[in-house]
């Protein structure tokens, strides 16, 4: 029997993977993908809550969240293009014109 906790644990694992991806991957495209993973992990937990609480709001939230995540990543890619145009690189450690 799947309980709420199973979904939440799955969500947490995916969230952690996403965070790890943001922390560890040097390629900004993969970082953006990891961010997407984070949002989706939250979607799982929202959907699970919605299901177990018998509440529609969570599902609505998931829909909005998917939209937001998509927009966010789209903008991210657009900015990345701009970055690539000026620097010819997509690696995070090259972005250090400003520091301290």
């Amino acid at each position, binding site marked *: 029997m799947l309980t709420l906790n199973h979904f939440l644990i799955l969500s947490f694992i995916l*969230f952690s993977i996403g965070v790890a991806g943001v922390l560890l991957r040097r390629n900004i495209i993969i*970082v953006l993908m990891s961010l997407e993973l984070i949002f989706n992990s939250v979607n799982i937990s929202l959907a699970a809550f919605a299901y177990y609480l018998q509440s529609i709001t*969570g599902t609505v*939230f998931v829909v909005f969240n998917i939209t937001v995540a998509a927009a966010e990543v789209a903008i991210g890619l657009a*900015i990345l293009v701009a*970055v690539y145009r000026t620097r010819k690189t997509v690696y995070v450690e090259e972005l250090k014109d*400003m520091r301290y």
Partner: protein
Amino acid sequence: MEMNLFRLIPEFIMLGTAFLLLILELFLPKGSRKAFGVIGILGTVSAAISLPYQDYGLALAGLFVQDQMSIYFKWLFVISSVFVLYIVMLYEDKINNWRGEFYSIIVFAISGMMMLASTNDFVSFYVSLEFVAICLYVLAAFLSDSRVTSEAGLKYLITGALASGFLIYGISFIYGATGVTGFAEVAKALQGVEPTGFVLIGIVLVVIGLTFKISSIPFHVWSPDVYQGAPTPVTALLAAASKAAGFVVILRILFGALGPMKGEWMAFVAVISGITLLFGNLAAMPQKDLKRLIGYAGIGSAGYLLMAVAAASELGAGAIMFYLLTYVFGIIGTFTAIVVFHNSEGSDLVESYAGLYKRSPLLAFSLFIGLLSIAGFPPLGGFIAKFYIFMAAIKEGLWVLAVIGALMAIVAMYYFLLVIKSMYLRQPTNPAPIPVDMTTTGLLYFVNAATILLGVYPGPVTDLVMNIAQGVF
């Protein structure tokens, strides 16, 4: 399920203005440079005109609420909008393409913030928040052929998205614990119950997630780079309006939705506030770039505001509102001067401001008033604001925090005085005067006068915010 769309008229006006600007971008000839700005400002002013006619109540089936506080913050955003758009007009020579879009996105961002001021539900809150955020990501990276702005934009976006992840994760737990998303419903559900694990995780993650917008510990990391790298009007927008937006949602969520749980987050916020105060102010000391310096100082200011949040009282809420108003004026005055100076000198370094008093007394005076107000020197508005925040902290017995705040106020004086020193005590290397046009002069006089007036006669505004604060819990 009343829609009451008329309560969203200010937002609609702003959105309409933004769309109008987008469309005009296609039609207006390149020569008519100032037209966008003027249209943007006129649109904002129309939104402002509609504000006094707003009545209080819910809209969009309870997703939005119009109350005294939302109106107050919408005024703040409208004021910021007008001045930021004006700053863009001063700045627009630097923008090569898509000038209309730049104005348009700023107006979009402001309308998003106005929505944030009215959010009454986690869903509408999250969507509005992301709406603002996405606009700001774009704005921060707008000069696409500049290395620093694109870097700033990307850093802003990735840290922002990560923070959003934590925030939404936290919201999901609160939703899971209560089964509702409306602020009022959440508050009702949490009233008088023992906090469960879900609630606690939710509170912690939401509090932390909210720190991004206000650039406080631990999600403060973006702000120095973005303040420095973003186009200057965007920095002004981030510093003034975006920070205010961050605090209005803190007031809505922590005081409103999570108000019944305030025993669970007060001490936590106090810790965040203390560390933020220490970090922002101490790290600001060695800064050489004025925009970056203000970025760090902004972290420090967030610490002060959080101090009032940690006090979790009506007085604290009133103090926050007063502080943000003075902060908006301080930032506007400062950034107008920075843009004018940058147009003339092409530098934001503190040392390049040497002897500014001689080259342009007005710019120097505006920076003097603006920065000292932020630093909390009397008799400027910022002083009264800080005073109220200390009042709130002392009232709740937050002595440690208050002492940290007092010490950091001295540190803040130090780094702002370094700027003053450069402007007033040093002699200029290039004595050529910096011209300031009539409109800008008038605007600077107005902003400075407002800052001083808030300091010497804070009575009416204080009475207003304290009145608004009565209903915050």
